[in-house]
């Protein structure tokens, strides 16, 4: 559906995008991840034909964006980072203009706009002037604009940036709904969003594509066989028992959160099911096993590992799936992990539970 080949974009001497290639199939929802200034927006602007690449090709459904812009652009709905809204128009006027612009037939305009406004839940603000809308609603109007003409491809540049947590969840739900019938590329630096919505993630750093895969595969392939366990019993003897067990390659003490228990992080040697070894050891020594939790790297941690490691490339990435990473690598990942945990916590704190969702739509109107 979307094919990007050897994309390069130079701003003077600065290379914003360095040789990015990827393909997106029909129906896929792809997340663009990357720190600020990684080249996400630039890449999206090139795909949509807003700016031209220094070299490389982009084709949408087989239509080259430079050679056949009309056909290619017809198939794309684009929501830029800042929604392109005319502040002194009402929502209906604005969407009518968008429909005119995209060459929607006159008879189809009204039912189409009604349908879209229904989907995005902006029907009740349709008569309002856009400058009087809240940021969340402006974002929705921007999204509605992208949907006008029912394009097959949606390109959404940070669709949730600057919104409050409730609005983020609402927009995310809208995107999930849209993903059933559209091919979507969305960029974000909120990783939980990407893992919630996308079925493939492309990580971009400093203009390069550094990793690509499903959120699960990315975290699996980078994480080792690590478990966090909680045991009840004498602290000294627990630590000694596990450290002396040859089924574990490393045993680290972890912060204990509950009185009378000991938390450990263990890593198994290859060929042994670490979970079984943990259980057997506990039974043998008479400890009570309270918890076994997989310490899989979350997407945040994958992201940090991939983007902070200067020399990281796609080749390194595929190598590390073979679990042959050396000690130095491990140290680094441990450092990153703690940092990532903090970030994850922050994100969790700012995101309320899903059930707020039920009462949505009211606060915004004010």
């Amino acid at each position: 559906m979307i094919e990007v080949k050897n994309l390069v974009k130079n701003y003077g001497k600065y290379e914003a995008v360095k040789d990015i290639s990827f393909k997106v199939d029909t129906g896929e929802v792809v997340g663009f991840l990357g720190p600020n200034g990684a080249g996400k927006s630039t890449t999206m602007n090139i795909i949509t034909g807003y700016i031209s690449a220094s070299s490389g090709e982009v084709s949408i459904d087989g239509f080259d964006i430079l050679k056949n812009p009309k056909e290619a652009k017809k198939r794309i709905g684009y929501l830029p980072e800042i929604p392109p809204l005319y502040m002194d128009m009402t929502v209906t006027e604005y969407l009518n203009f968008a429909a005119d612009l995209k060459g929607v037939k006159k008879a189809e305009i009204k039912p189409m706009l009604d349908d879209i406004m229904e989907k995005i839940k902006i029907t009740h603000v349709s008569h309002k002037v856009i400058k009087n809308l809240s940021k969340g609603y402006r974002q929705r109007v921007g999204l509605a604009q992208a949907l006008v003409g029912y394009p097959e491809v949606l390109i959404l540049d940070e669709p949730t940036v600057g919104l409050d947590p409730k609005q983020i969840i609402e927009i995310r739900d809208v995107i999930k709904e849209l993903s059933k019938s559209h091919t979507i590329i969305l960029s974000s630096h909120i990783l939980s969003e990407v893992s919630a919505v996308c079925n493939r993630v492309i990580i971009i750093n400093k203009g390069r594509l550094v990793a690509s895969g499903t959120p699960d595969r990315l975290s699996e392939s980078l994480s080792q066989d690590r478990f966090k366990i909680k045991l009840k019993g004498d602290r000294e003897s627990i630590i000694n028992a596990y450290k002396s067990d040859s089924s574990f390659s490393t045993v680290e003490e972890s912060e204990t959160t509950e009185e009378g228990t000991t938390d450990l992080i263990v890593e198994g040697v290859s060929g042994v099911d670490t979970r079984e070894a943990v259980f057997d050891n506990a039974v043998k020594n008479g400890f009570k096993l309270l918890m076994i939790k997989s310490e899989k790297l979350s997407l945040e941690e994958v992201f940090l590992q991939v983007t902070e490691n200067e020399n990281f490339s796609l080749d390194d990435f595929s190598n590390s799936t073979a679990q042959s990473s050396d000690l130095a690598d491990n140290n680094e990942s441990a450092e990153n992990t703690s940092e990532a945990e903090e970030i994850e916590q922050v994100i969790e704190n700012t995101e309320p539970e899903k059930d707020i969702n039920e009462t949505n739509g009211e606060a915004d109107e004010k």
Partner: protein
Amino acid sequence: MKAIYKREIKMYFSSMIGYVFIAFFVLITAVYFSLQNILSLSPDFQYVFSSVIMMFLILAPMLTMRLLSEEKKQKTDQMLLTSPVSIPAIVLGKYLAAVTVFLISLVITGIFPIILSFFGTVALAQILGSYIGFFLLGSAFIAVGLWISSITDNQIVSAVATFVAVFLLLMVETIVSAASGSESFSLMFAGVIALLIALYVYYNTKNTEVSITVFIIEAAVLLVLYFVKRSIFTGLAGKFAMMFAVLTRFNSFAMGLLDISSIVYFISFIAVFLYFTIRVIEKRRWS
């Protein structure tokens, strides 16, 4: 193009600009009409236009200052440029909308010569000629204003620059008649043009050697010409500047002459500036 045109027209009349423009234009014309026709008992309406021309200093920026600069500032150009509408269509839509507002106010002033026709004999040919000329002149200024608004994303800068550009266009004849017509002055002028061409080459290629070579070749050609055939340079600078003498062209219309060459001149003048506008927008996509 139709979508853009429709939106711009709506914009002019949902904000104050359209009404203010028309009111201002008609008011000024009415004042001159009262002074020159009613109070001095003259049926020569065409002279009113010659007096009103100076108003383009304010009228042109009023219509064009936000046309493209505002799109860029509000990032709404992203919507236009990623829609299946070509850049020439966008530019043309905006241009025609501005010209339409100008045309509406021009049509309203048609009431003045009609009033005059009840009380005396009006020179129909001269008045019609004036209308056509005035329309073409205004359209030319609007094209210049549109081009300037595509360069900057600041409305104020766009307005001031358009004011200056219109001022220079109106003053071309005065400047040319005042400036020296000597050959050495023309040589200097040609030198400046040569330098500008070299700078343009540098701007596009970022290659110092090529640009310097270009300039040296140009300078050599100019010097050889100067010593071999000095007569070429007689009044060269003036001739060049007179290419922009829109007022001279207008005056032929005011005399009641429907001069084809002048019509072609204005149309190509407009086309060139619309082309520049398209180039500016396209260039930005590539840089």
